[in-house]
């Protein structure tokens, strides 16, 4: 927020519409979830207060724990690959001209494809019978089949997520790089800095802001991933690619276990908030110290 802001409580009028709409579409449903999470609901007229029972049950549920660990593994893998790859791609981008525009559009395209279509595209692409990737790998002598091999399913999901989201990191990093003044590169050149040193000491410090955002977004969104694995693997083979959202959706809509699903939701939401907050504050504390 800007520094020289005028104090005036009438400004509330300006935020009122936002407040109303977010309260309507956010607070009421969230309250409903909290309400469910402490009740046992047999049907809509018969319900008991059960306190924190559902929370305890959720945290003890081995399937929840498994899905949670898989989720962490997936998010970690996504971050490890996409952040460096996105930065390298951004460094290769030309700064202007038609080529830059076309590349920009190509990079942004996966971000605007409906998520289930992303799943469908990769299904068509990776299937061992009709997919370019699947058939090619099998031709090369690798018995690739993501519908039956857990490892293949994982790698395919990861490849899909990289295809889908690395662009976001790349675009953020590219925008960050365009704000590095030419003089900084020139100074490093005259100082005799190596390519690595230019990246480490000139570019990286100036990319910090956008990279924090990139990591936060990828962390949050990969933690919420639902649609793409739902279409591509359906959580299988077995439960090997069932992540938190999918487990939750099965519970809430599939089995109609309202209480546990609600408790699950709250825990899930709090985890994401906690992760984001921990990451954000640790980065910002570094910032303050220096």
């Amino acid at each position: 927020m800007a520094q020289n802001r005028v104090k005036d409580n009438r400004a509330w009028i300006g935020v009122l519409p936002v407040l109303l709409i977010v309260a309507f579409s956010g607070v009421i449903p969230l309250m409903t979830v909290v309400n469910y999470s402490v009740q046992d609901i047999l049907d809509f007229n018969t319900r008991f207060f059960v306190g924190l029972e559902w929370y305890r049950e959720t945290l003890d549920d081995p399937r929840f724990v498994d899905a949670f660990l898989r989720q962490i593994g997936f998010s970690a893998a996504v971050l490890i690959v996409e952040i460096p790859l996105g930065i390298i791609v951004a460094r290769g981008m030309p700064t202007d001209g038609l080529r830059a525009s076309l590349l920009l559009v190509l990079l942004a395209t996966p971000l605007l494809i409906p998520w289930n279509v992303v799943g469908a595209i990769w299904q068509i692409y990776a299937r061992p019978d009709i997919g370019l990737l699947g058939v090619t790998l099998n031709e090369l002598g690798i018995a690739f089949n993501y519908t039956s091999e857990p490892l293949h399913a994982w790698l395919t999901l990861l490849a899909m997520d990289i295809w889908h989201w690395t662009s976001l990191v790349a675009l953020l990093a590219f925008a960050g790089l365009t704000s590095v003044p030419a003089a900084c590169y020139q100074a490093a050149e005259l100082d005799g800095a190596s390519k690595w040193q230019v990246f480490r000491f000139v570019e990286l410090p100036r990319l910090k802001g956008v990279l924090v955002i990139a990591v936060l977004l990828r962390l949050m969104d990969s933690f919420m991933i639902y649609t793409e694995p739902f279409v591509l693997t359906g959580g299988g083979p077995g439960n090997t690619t069932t992540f938190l959202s999918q487990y939750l959706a099965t519970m809430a809509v599939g089995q109609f276990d309202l209480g546990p699903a609600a408790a699950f939701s709250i825990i899930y939401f709090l985890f994401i908030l906690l992760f984001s907050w921990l990451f954000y504050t640790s980065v910002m504390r570094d910032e303050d110290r220096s």
Partner: protein
Amino acid sequence: MARIRLDNVGFTYPGADAATLAPLSMDISHGEAFSLLGASGAGKTTLLNLLSGILQPTQGRIFLDDVDVTGLPGRDRNLSQVFQFPVLYQSMTVRENLAFPLTTRGSRRNRADIEARVNAVADELNIGGILKRSAKGISLFEKQLVAIGRALIRPDVSMVLLDEPLTAVEPSVKWRLRQTLKQAQQDLGVTMVYVTHDQTEALTFAERVAVLANGYILQTGTPDDVYQNPAHEFVGHFLGSPGMNFLPVADLPESLQQRVTGMGDPERLGFRPENAALGLPNTFDLPGVVHSQRILGTQRGEVISMYGLQCGAHSVFVRSSMPLAVGDPVTIDLKRWIGFRDAIRVGRRGAE
């Protein structure tokens, strides 16, 4: 430290009609403080970029100590540069910033040497107290000092390029930075090329000044020389505040015209506001009428004013302590003037 020699160096952007920098030759000696002065668009940044290796000349050769460096990238010319805005490595401390050029490829040294050199340069610039601070947490003035320090850190640096280094700092500390810079230049004896559009900076900093306009070097000389004896009308006009006055010889009184003939047959006379005296009507040859007055200050009890005078169709400025009011008729005595033909100096009088 090195001698810099430009041999017929010119630069034309690909596809451009006119040269951004017309072919020029120039010689800057060991340890000299040299200044490139010109308005924006004059070609001084192009010349700077040719020296630093960002651009390569489209003709001519550049020598550092008789070594041909034409075509070499900046990192292989062993030079350093200070930019308009302080360029520092944000994530490092001040000490690490200063030491950085000594730790990179080609200039690796042992730690004790680095330590000693960093301390020496920090002492010279008076920044010993902030060595441990982060480069992000210091003032703009200190940042620019550190940037200067980084440019001076390599003892064998061939030249230090300064690109309007006082632009970013506050006016109140500009002179301090300039003093520090000049002192460091003298103490360390480095060759410095100082690029600026500010005549005060150029004339006070440099031992020699080159004045650029439209891609040409119009004159190179000592600050006193370019100020007092401009080789080109533009130089006279560009330096000084207000700049040199110009009067066409044809519009001068007969008596004055006769004194001018035989001096290279000039078309126009140039004289500085302080190189003329005023008198009552009929005292001197050139009549004029006061149309404006600006009081500059007092000197030995007298009020010094800058008078704007109307001489026929022309307006000139003269500095004088004579008390006058707007509308008063006066006469002007040219004590020292320069004759120009086709904007080039052809003769002078009163200058020894």
